[in-house]
């Protein structure tokens, strides 16, 4: 352990100066899981082997929409080593998160290229692979619904049974006889009045393609379905063990307590591993193979083709503004190209009606959000949960409005920004405790050195040099998208030597919760950080409940739960100490691992002497093992009114802003990101190093969405780029030259030490800021992502000032 202590005192170059007011909270402690991860010791579901384990492989539809005429699995079944072979006719298990619209295997009709048609479990991966190649499927190819326009015509229905699909009633609204999986709306004030008051009305359309999450560990599941009972044991790369347990119980009509979910280390998730994915299929294979464990892992190609994505989106926005810069009305229609199944996609669509207006106080506004079925790979949650997409629409539009008005984009935003007393579109009142988007924007604009827009002459002069530079900025806003009754919990146990183990129900897949929560416990208990351990592996049999590891809510909610559990632990210790010292617990304090008498601090008992029960000198014992628990329930949230979207959806908003400076090569269309300044009102830094890493990682993922990434489909919706060769993500060469994170700390009253969530936020609006900077550099407005060299050059060569 000696080198770990040494690590604590080591200099590191990446963070800015940050002084914390607390002993542990705010300190840049190193990651709890770091040593295991730099030595190859960390075990992922991908690495796991169980005795007697079989290996599974899957067969996927090559067509976006086809009728399955016949499947012949006889040759596959006859292969030596094959233990199970299943297809649609063997399984009628339906799964779904909010809408029960998905079969485990395509049955009757395939709805996207990549959908699983059949699967095999065999003694080795090679045999399973070979068996898959022996399955003969006859398809009748059908005309697919290729995009949202075709889908909205509703000539062909992706789900002909849409009128009867079971769904969460009152939250999602499938439209009869259409391809609209859910239509959600919100409105505030009167659009007629707002547009009447406007001096200028501007309408635009913005869009972006589907994007892959790309966790480095592809999806993996191992399932052992006990043949003698209903027990199903799962080891998975899933990010939300308890949500998985609940959905598995529903899918297989067994008790929740029959489902056991074990989550080892997870190799990245980003929302793509929320929900239920491979587990039902592997359960069916395990059952068919007599209950032995079966492992299925996706190849990278399958991960692109078969596993869900971030939805493509089209945002149509109409804004009314007065000459002096007040936004009087905003009307937005978001159309989500959500693919073949609803999954989390409908919830992303729902979130857009309260999070999709930007952090602005607009008295007359309306948002319509259509989550639309198409014959494409389906969409799910992805870091930002719709906000990167909606803010691509809103923050590009805001920039264009300021161009048309001739008002500085910084001034224009500040004029319309949410401030204490303003209302959101849900008519939630913003207070001092909500955080300040204005503080964030001011900070990044200052850091990037914004001095106002370039003139056209300046742009033309710079153009002749072959490289043009531009600065741009954009706002960020996001609250956790969660049910009104979301809960989490932790259990804390004291070990005999006074160390504390914390069990949580959520998963740390790299975000740093193991470390941040340990700091909060160390702070509350006043013991060294090294004496607190958060158990990294989550297991639904022993760990306490957590709703989902999503929505940037873990440090916020589990942090509050740890505070509660810690205070209860101190109360227990004081209770034992009061008896041992024959005094009232009221006269006792706690510090430095001891309970002491406040007025006589030298009279004290160490935590460790009470951890398992206190023993008097004669050996007689009192107390007992110190164990406490803490919970956090989302407080005061409500469902939204189905028509107006009124209600309280947001546990806590995190506001922020990015400012970027880019350099464009006018010959190649290549964009280099020179500098990014990112400010977030996070209330309180819990661990400076982890926050820094969230910012750098999120900014980079945002750059990917901005200038690199996107699914490309053929005319019949076959994915053309299912590999890293053609579907690139950023590498170290795409890294910006400088990233400056800025932490604003206006405390959130219900957050742990005032903290707010900060994870997804760092990615949101990076594309918007780059798009705005690209206008500054070129005088051209771009409306579609990604801003690849190809797309930028096509725009430049078109000679147009608006590249739609």
């Amino acid at each position, binding site marked *: 352990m000696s080198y770990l202590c040494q690590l604590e005192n080591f200099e590191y170059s990446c963070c800015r100066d940050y002084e914390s007011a607390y002993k542990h909270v705010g300190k840049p402690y190193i990651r709890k899981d770091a040593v295991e991860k*730099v030595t*190859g010791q960390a075990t992922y579901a991908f690495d796991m082997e169980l005795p007697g384990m079989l290996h599974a492989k899957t067969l996927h539809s090559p067509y976006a929409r086809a009728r399955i005429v016949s499947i012949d699995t006889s040759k596959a079944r006859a292969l030596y080593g094959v233990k199970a072979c299943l297809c649609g006719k063997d399984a009628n298990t339906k799964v779904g998160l909010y809408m029960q619209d998905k079969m485990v295997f395509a049955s009757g009709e395939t709805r996207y290229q990549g959908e699983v048609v059949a699967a095999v479990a065999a003694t080795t991966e090679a045999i399973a692979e070979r068996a898959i190649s022996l399955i003969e499927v006859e398809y009748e190819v059908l005309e697919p619904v290729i995009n949202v326009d075709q889908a909205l015509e509703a000539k062909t229905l992706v789900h002909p049974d849409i009128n009867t699909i079971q769904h969460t009633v009152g939250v999602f609204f499938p439209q009869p006889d259409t391809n609209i999986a859910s239509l959600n709306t919100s409105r505030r004030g009167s659009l007629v009045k707002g547009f009447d008051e406007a001096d200028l009305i501007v309408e635009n359309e913005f869009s972006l393609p589907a994007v892959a999450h790309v966790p*480095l560990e592809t999806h993996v599941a191992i399932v052992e379905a006990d043949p003698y009972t209903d027990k199903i044991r799962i080891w998975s790369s899933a990010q939300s063990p308890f949500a998985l347990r609940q959905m598995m119980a529903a899918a297989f009509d067994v008790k929740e307590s029959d489902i056991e979910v074990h989550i080892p280390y997870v190799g990245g998730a980003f929302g793509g591993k929320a929900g239920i994915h491979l587990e039902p299929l592997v359960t069916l294979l395990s059952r068919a193979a007599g209950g032995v464990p079966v492992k299925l892992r996706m190849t990278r190609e399958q991960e692109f083709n078969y596993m869900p994505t971030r939805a493509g989106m089209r945002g149509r926005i109409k804004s009314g503004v007065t000459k002096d810069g007040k936004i009087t009305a905003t009307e937005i229609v978001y159309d989500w190209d959500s693919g073949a199944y609803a999954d989390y996609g409908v919830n992303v669509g729902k979130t857009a009606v309260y999070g999709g207006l930007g952090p602005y106080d607009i008295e007359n506004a309306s948002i319509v959000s259509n989550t639309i079925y198409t014959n494409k790979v389906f969409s799910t949650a992805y870091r930002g949960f719709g906000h990167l997409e909606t803010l691509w629409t809103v923050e590009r539009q805001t920039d264009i409005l300021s161009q048309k008005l001739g008002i500085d984009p910084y001034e224009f935003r500040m004029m319309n920004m949410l401030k204490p007393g303003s209302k959101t579109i849900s008519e939630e009142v913003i207070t001092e405790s909500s955080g300040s988007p204005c503080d964030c924007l001011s900070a990044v604009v200052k850091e990037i050195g914004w001095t106002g827009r370039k003139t056209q002459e300046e742009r033309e002069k710079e153009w002749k040099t072959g490289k043009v530079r531009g600065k741009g900025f954009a706002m960020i806003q996001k609250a956790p998208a969660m049910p009104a009754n979301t809960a989490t919990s932790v259990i804390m146990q004291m070990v005999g030597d006074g160390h504390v183990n914390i069990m949580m129900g959520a998963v740390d897949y790299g975000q740093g919760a193991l470390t941040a929560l340990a700091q909060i416990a160390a702070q509350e208990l006043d013991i060294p950080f090294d004496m607190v351990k958060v158990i990294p592996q989550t297991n639904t049999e022993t760990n306490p409940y957590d709703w989902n590891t999503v929505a940037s809510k873990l440090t916020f909610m589990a942090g509050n739960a740890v505070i509660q559990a810690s205070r209860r632990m101190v109360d227990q210790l004081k209770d034992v100490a009061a008896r041992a010292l024959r005094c009232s617990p009221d006269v006792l304090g706690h510090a430095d691992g001891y309970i002491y008498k406040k007025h006589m601090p030298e009279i004290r008992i160490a935590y460790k002497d009470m951890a398992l029960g206190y023993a008097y000198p004669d050996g007689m014992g009192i107390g007992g093992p110190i164990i406490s628990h803490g919970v956090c329930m989302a407080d005061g949230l409500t469902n939204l009114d189905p028509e107006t979207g009124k209600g309280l959806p947001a546990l806590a908003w995190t506001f922020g802003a990015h400012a970027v400076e880019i350099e464009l090569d006018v010959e190649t269309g290549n964009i280099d990101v020179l500098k990014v300044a990112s400010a977030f009102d996070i209330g309180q830094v819990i661990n400076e190093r982890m926050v820094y890493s969230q910012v750098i990682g999120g900014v980079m993922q945002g750059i990917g969405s901005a200038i690199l990434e996107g699914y490309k489909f053929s005319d019949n919706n076959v994915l053309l780029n299912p590999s890293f060769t053609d579907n690139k993500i950023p590498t170290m060469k795409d890294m910006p030259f400088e990233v400056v994170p800025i932490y604003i700390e206006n405390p959130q009253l219900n957050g742990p030490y005032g903290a707010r969530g900060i994870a997804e936020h760092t990615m949101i609006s990076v594309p918007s800021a780059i798009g705005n900077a690209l206008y500054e550099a070129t005088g051209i407005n771009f409306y579609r992502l990604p801003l690849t060299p190809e797309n930028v050059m096509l725009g430049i060569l078109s000679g147009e000032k608006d590249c739609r």
Partner: protein
Amino acid sequence: MTVAELKNDGKACAMDTAHVSSSRDLRVVIDLIVNGERVIEEVEPNMLLLHFLRDKLKLFGAKESCGEGECGACTVLMNGYAVTSCLVLAVEANGAEILTVEGLSKGNELSILQQEFIFQDALQCGFCTPGMLMSARGLLDKNPNPTDEEIREAMAGNLCRCTGYLQIFDAVKRAAEREREEREE
């Protein structure tokens, strides 16, 4: 059912067992050094070095993330060069010296490079980390004084979705400095 009955069972007779004998007939013995220890093993000729390390030697540090040499998660050192072990056959490693992430520490003390990955917070989920470390090791062994551009170039074949790379870059750069200092002492 007895073995005789099983053999006479129609299904069993029709079983395609060609792949069983073909892979059993062709085996090659390879003799190599892995993390400083000699290893002699029998492998199928089409076995990948990555699968040899993971499945045969149970060294699970090297990961498979793309299987096509595009992501770098399976990077190991082969005779001092960083290679993506998913593109190398185990038989090609016959006679070679292989170093994996499990061989990076010195006894029970982390190497400077591993320490710097921790100090600079150059990891989050950790899945790309073994490959990142091995690419960096390969670079620093061949070029102890890399320029910023040389670090970017050497590490560009390793994908990471969590960190955003800056911390990895800082870790490699700082490790190079500390290793230089250590050599000079």
